[in-house]
């Protein structure tokens, strides 16, 4: 299975994960400051800043894009409960 490295720069932790895992499945377990609300892509609480490798996350869905727009989030921001890891990426709380 393809592997990828996810770095949480707010806590200096890098986790090697199987491709396809969502950020939400990793960040809470290692104690990153990314916070969660609804956990289903609606509330925007888990907005995160993608510092490196944004092309290595799954493309945002129509609904995620809508929430990002409503939160006036730029191209370097994603919802941690939605984004799947496809390659190496560095993230931090927004």
């Amino acid at each position, binding site marked *: 299975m393809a592997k990828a490295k996810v770095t949480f720069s707010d*806590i200096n932790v*890098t*986790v*090697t994960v199987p491709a396809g895992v969502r950020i939400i499945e990793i960040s809470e377990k290692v*104690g*990153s400051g990314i916070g*969660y609300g609804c956990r289903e892509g609606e509330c925007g*609480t888990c907005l995160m800043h993608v510092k490196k490798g944004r092309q290595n996350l799954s493309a945002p869905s129509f609904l995620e894009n*809508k929430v990002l727009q409503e*939160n006036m989030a730029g191209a370097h921001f994603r919802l941690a409960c939605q984004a799947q890891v496809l390659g190496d990426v560095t993230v931090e709380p927004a």
Partner: protein
Amino acid sequence: MTSLTFPDCAIPISNRVHWIGAFDPLLRSFDLILKTANGTTYNAYLVRGQQGVAIIDTVKEEFAEEFFKRLESVANYDEITLIVLNHLEPDHTGALPELLKRAPQAYLYISHQAQSMLKGLLKLDEKQLQFKPVTTGDHVDLGDCTLEFFHTPYLHWPDTQCTYLREEKLLFSGDVFGCHFCDARLFNDLVGDFRFSFDYYYAHIMRPFKKYVLDALTLLEPLALDLIAPTHGPVLRDQPRRYLQHYRTLSTPRKEVVDKTLLIFYISAYGNTARMAHAIYQGASTVTGLRVSIFDLQGGEVEPFVDLIEEADGIVLGTPTINGDAVKPIWDLLSSLAVVNLKGKVGAAFGSYGWTGEAVNMIESRLRGLKLRVPVPGLRIKLIPTEEELATCQTFGQQLAETMTQKQAVRELDFSQI
């Protein structure tokens, strides 16, 4: 019962603006969380410009007729060109569906974050709604006057905004600078003593969002102000700037120490969780740059602990497991934290147990639910901790302290380890 007579027509508050809200003197509990000893008001306003009439917010649904009666006393529905919604909570949008029926030509002005709420509220398709999302720098012209918008989110919902009528130096502030206080005399220089209500409202509604309050004050303080028109309580025309200063005082951190602060709270039935707590305290205290404190929950009241937690950087909670659960004083403390901002603080849990030991995981889940981060896995010890286990507790405390002071080395983990 109330001894005051409430006027049933619109009340002028400035040259172009009328108050068209509603009085609710008999309300005794608001949104389940606030007591309202003399009721509240739902403040809505009407602005008359040369090229149209704007409605600023509406009222709770059951007071809609009162609102429409006041509106009709100063304007016709076909004159309404726009409706500004500074906050979409139902006590301010209850009359909106009916208002849109009576003034279908009106355009809605809302914040960007309010868009999904508006659709949820009106249960209408996007195409059926005429609305414009606005933010700081946007404005709408009413001919001889202009409404300017200010993006002030989380005061106290994500959607909240303020609207400024520059020609009258009048700020429609939404819930900010509001309070639950019902007095027919309406203006702050005429009504009874509402200082307690003002501070109580802040403590329960705005306190969790102090950072956002300070951001909003930075936007609003440069404005010339003759009058603040909030959505609840008295209209502030006497020394309005005093209320901004008071909000700044209430929202500015009291903490003077430069070190990070870690608070350890525990409760112990047989002294085992207490032993763990003190070992964690010792371990955490070995790290410089961190002020560590330890408290037995049996010896204190919840409220001052909430004040301490608000300004701490991390909390550690120790509880035994009794009947498969953490004990009540721990849950009482956790359920009292909704009034403070916890996002990003470090949290951790530990405890001694006799049989199943579920409490630690439960507390960790709750801490995450409250948006704390839990960087060090919880520590559970069966019954009486050995010397070796107490050393593990010390290491646990040290790890937490190092994480909080960013002394922890860069870590590389595999998914299977977390």
